[in-house]
């Protein structure tokens, strides 16, 4: 570990303290969105919507979920890139912090990836 000057003290610590809760929060949110979509898909598979009205409503429900994921993607990508740069070459207090960021980043990117592939097709009878 390097000796730090006083004005640069805790740069890594501050970053980790800010980034990790954000990453946890958005990983959970994205996973929840994916689960909601999967539950809806399962429900529609079990009982396919009947008629034009039901099908349209089902489609709207899935599209709304997809839209929620889509709205997050740009900011989540930015967060991912900032964390990635810290992992790659940032000044952190310990290698354990770097490992923690790597793990959190992998979880967040997995969740984002799953959210980008939400299936919005409606099962038909």
């Amino acid at each position, binding site marked *: 570990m390097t000796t730090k000057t006083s004005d640069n003290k805790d740069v890594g610590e501050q970053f980790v303290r800010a980034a990790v809760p954000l990453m946890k929060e958005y990983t959970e949110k994205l996973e929840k969105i994916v689960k909601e979509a999967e539950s809806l898909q399962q429900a529609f598979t079990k009982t396919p919507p009947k008629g034009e009205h039901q099908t349209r409503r089902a489609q709207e429900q899935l599209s709304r979920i997809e839209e929620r994921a889509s709205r997050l993607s740009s900011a989540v990508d930015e967060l991912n*890139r*900032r964390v*990635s*740069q810290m992992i*790659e*070459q940032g*000044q952190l207090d310990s290698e354990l912090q770097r490992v923690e960021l790597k793990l959190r980043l992998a979880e967040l990117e997995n969740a984002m990836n799953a959210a980008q592939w939400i299936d919005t097709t409606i099962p038909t009878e």
Partner: protein
Amino acid sequence: MPDIPSESSILRELKALVDLISPIWQRFTRRKKTERDSDSNENSQREVLILGPGGVGKTTFARLISLDYDFRSEEPGGYEESIGIESFTMAPDEQVEVVVLPGQKHRRASSWTEVLEQIKGGRFAGVMLFSAFGHHSLGEISITSLELFEKCGRKKRPFLSTYFDSKRQDELDVLRNLQPYLETSSNPIWMLSTVVKQDLWWSDRQEVDRHYREGDYGKIIESIARKRSAASFRHEFAFASLVIANLTSGEDELLKKNTAGYGQAQQIASLNTLCETLGSLLEWEKLK
């Protein structure tokens, strides 16, 4: 030459680049189409793999050749780190697929191994290995947050010297990582060592040339070539500038100005050489 091109010069660059690149690719792709049409049983086109450390312009290049780069709306030299493996098709006839691997060290273990293994199996016609004589763009981070900046006493000059050295080492590490796959590829394969950001190191171009051709980099290439026959491995160098821009951090801190006197004429000439070299390698592979 001003450090930052004005909007009108950016637009001129756009037009010049599109004018330059489109006919070159049209020429190659038209020829390919004729060949493909004459042999309907031909297997699908093999792909081109682009790899290298982060911040060396791999995705920018892939976007340029797929005509997906808009100089009017994009910040020249701006760096947006690629998170995963990306695919592009070379414009305009969409016959050559390009696969770009993310360059950050911590992404290599999870995303590189499987793709590199496919070099052995012949998935790729060729590999473009990107380097920048250590002038790798910093992503969304300030230099004040860098471990290396702290190690260099928070002084910019020693930091930059050490930063460029460490990034050149990383370029060698990537080549060493690639080496065994190129040596054991089951098919003929070409490699194009693409050294970009010429506008940043133009005044040191003789040193750059020596570094890649005669230094450890060149020795590794020679070693690969010795293990393969001339008919099954071909290597070329191309030195180029994809965009003319100062090297800055993601927080807009100026790290190095582009070289005074390096202008559009040199850039266009470098891109022409790069495209011609790439085209000739694709043709070489086609004849195998």
